[in-house]
């Protein structure tokens, strides 16, 4: 087994950042004993000299304009859950661990991604796209992988042997031990893991309790470290509170990207595609705005989802600023895959027709696209129907018909010369739209040809119904 531990040291702050262009120092604090301490801060605060573990008062002394947010454990849980969904695209065995790490079993995924290096590169790239800072520790045991990640060691340990040499220099303060044991280790002059391993286990247990010995055994793999696999729920519905109200839809793209990333991983894990998706925008006072995305065929492509959502949202006007974004997959379906030719030369694949349709429908509306089909009716208005990608045999050959039909016949305003004998169309007497007309082809002085008719009831007026274009 090979474990990768994704550690998100700045998770609370990363998740709160609404825009990339943030110029105020921001920090997240948590209660530590009787004092409030900095838990995470953005890069502007770091530049000013604020770091983790600093008390709030000292931080205020450095940066009086520091913006603070309380750490909320439940929120962190939600964030971690979304990240776990996202991580499902890399491995089927995902374990989220509070407060801020996710363990992945990657050995089984190596072949799919083409080796550990390309998998890690992909991971870093995707995390960067979401604006997440991430440290990935890789080791044959899950405890060691976590330890590497917490200690900020990015170098992957591919074998037990490599792991053991790398472990020697890891400071003991990164071990997940309680405060009391940590202080004991510090006071005994034990700084790095090497020193701890060198102590005989029996002596170690006597001095610091079994906690310390257990962790060493877990690092080596002698003692199991159970990682229950995260199981994705059957439905997908995730929400994100915005730290600042978003006044327009542009500001929503950043949080939406995150939610769609989670959706992408979720779909990948279940081998599903999404056919319809609701984006629900909550407001302070009004009712939530629901933006529904419909896809012609199920898709799991995160970039395509984002593109369609972007197009759709840019056409949506907001009545009020948005405080919370939620996405809900309302219809999941299996993805239709077309078999790829094994020997096909790699060439730029043109965008699929479904993608084009989805994209157009997102901006122009669902009814803007259609294909026309002839129908079995002699009444000109009913001789065609709008269909979408439907197959129907054309009924028969028609006599001369205009290429353009006017949606509503209009009375002729100019002098027209009739060019044919009338063709009588009489139908629908049983219903409301009784048609009794004599159709002719007519042209004007300039040589434009029209399809005109006279009503049998009132033969005086000539109506134009079509244009021979």
């Amino acid at each position, binding site marked *: 087994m090979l474990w990768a531990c994704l550690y998100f040291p700045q998770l609370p702050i990363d998740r709160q950042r609404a825009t990339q262009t943030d110029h105020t120092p921001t920090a997240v604090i948590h209660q530590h004993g009787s004092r409030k301490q900095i838990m995470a801060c953005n890069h502007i605060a770091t530049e000013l000299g604020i770091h983790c573990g600093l008390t709030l008062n000292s931080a205020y002394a450095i940066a009086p304009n520091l913006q603070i947010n309380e750490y909320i454990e439940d929120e962190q849980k939600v964030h971690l859950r979304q990240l776990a969904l996202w991580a499902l695209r890399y491995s089927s065995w995902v374990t989220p661990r509070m407060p801020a790490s996710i363990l992945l079993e990657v050995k089984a995924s190596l072949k799919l991604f083409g080796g550990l290096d390309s998998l890690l590169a992909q991971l870093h790239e995707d995390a960067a796209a979401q604006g997440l800072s991430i440290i990935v520790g890789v080791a044959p045991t899950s405890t060691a992988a976590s330890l590497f990640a917490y200690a900020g060691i990015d170098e992957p340990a591919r074998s037990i042997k490599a792991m053991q040499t790398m472990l020697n220099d890891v400071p003991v303060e990164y071990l997940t031990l309680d405060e009391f044991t940590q202080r004991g280790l510090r006071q005994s002059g034990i700084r790095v893991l090497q020193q701890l391993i060198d102590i005989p286990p029996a002596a170690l247990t006597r001095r610091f309790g079994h906690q310390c010995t257990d962790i060493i055994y877990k690092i080596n793999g002698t003692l199991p470290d159970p990682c229950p696999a995260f199981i994705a729920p059957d439905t997908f519905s995730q929400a994100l509170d915005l730290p600042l109200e978003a006044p327009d839809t542009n500001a929503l793209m950043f949080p939406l990207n995150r939610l769609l990333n989670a959706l992408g991983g979720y779909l990948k894990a279940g081998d599903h595609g999404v056919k319809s998706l609701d984006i629900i925008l909550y407001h302070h006072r009004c009712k939530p705005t629901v933006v529904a995305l419909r896809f012609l065929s199920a898709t799991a492509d995160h970039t395509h989802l984002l593109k369609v959502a972007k197009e759709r949202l840019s056409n949506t006007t907001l009545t009020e600023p948005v405080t919370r974004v939620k996405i809900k997959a309302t219809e999941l379906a299996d993805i239709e895959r077309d078999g790829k030719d094994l020997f096909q030369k790699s060439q730029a694949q043109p965008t699929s027709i479904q993608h084009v349709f989805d994209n157009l429908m997102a901006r122009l509306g669902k009814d803007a696209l259609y294909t026309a089909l*002839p129908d079995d009716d002699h009444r000109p208005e009913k001789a065609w129907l709008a269909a979408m990608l439907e197959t129907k045999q054309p009924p028969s050959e028609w006599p001369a018909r205009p290429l*353009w039909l006017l949606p509503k016949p209009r009375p002729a305003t100019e002098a027209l*010369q009739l060019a044919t004998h009338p063709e009588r169309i009489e139908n629908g007497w049983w219903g409301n739209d009784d048609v009794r007309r004599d159709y002719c082809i007519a042209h004007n002085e300039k040589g434009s040809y*029209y399809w005109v008719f006279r009503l049998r009831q009132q033969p005086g007026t000539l109506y134009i119904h*079509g244009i021979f274009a």
Partner: protein
Amino acid sequence: MNIAHNNTIKNSALDELLKSQPALWRGRDQYNDYAAVPTGYAQLDKVLPSGGWGIGCLTELLLEQHGIGEISLLLPALSQVTSENQWAAFVNPPYLPYAPALANSGINLERLLIINTDNDQDTLWATEQLLRAGIFASVVAWVNRTTAQKQRRLQLAAELGKTWATVYRPANAQDQSSPAALRIVIGATPTHMTLNIIKSRGGKQHSVYIKPTQFDRPQGVEWPAMPPETDTGQAASSIAPVAPVAPVAPVAPVAPVAHSSLKR
């Protein structure tokens, strides 16, 4: 006609002579090997530099009035494209594209996507999307107001997607400059349709005349007959305020009958 024919013979002799000189570079040659869809009208194919509607080129058709055969001009090429199961699209057609007539002309309607838009901005956007996608063999759009800059986007998108792109614009746009590879002003006289090629990349300015009889084949039906002068009776003369002119359409008298017997 004869003079024009002689000219082409002279031109081809001149071409041969010029081609034998390897040191000579001619600007026109670089556009000659564009792929093209034959227009279906021999006299038009002859004067277009690539021998048809250029693939990867933007064609602008500037229209003086509707109802003169402006769509029939594209029908042979469109039916060829769609019957090969390739996609074609109409963006923002000015009226309802009438399915029975399109079916008559041999167009595979399942492969003709029709897109209605609300404004020119959406039309241009949708056209560009379709051209860029590279799936559509042909995209035809109707635009009222556009600029050379926007037309340039379409031209580039057509090149990128290797698509035959056609844009219909009002004839008064012919004075504006445009980066389109081919610009044709379509007009009509009572006896034929006139095509004035005002810009042709790699070609020359020309005028082409198409008689209405030539539309019979692309439209898939024979043009119905004119009623003989004696037969008009109460039908035609009482309504038409102008005096009857000479028959325009081909005359093949058919008895006045109900619609069903007009089918061939």
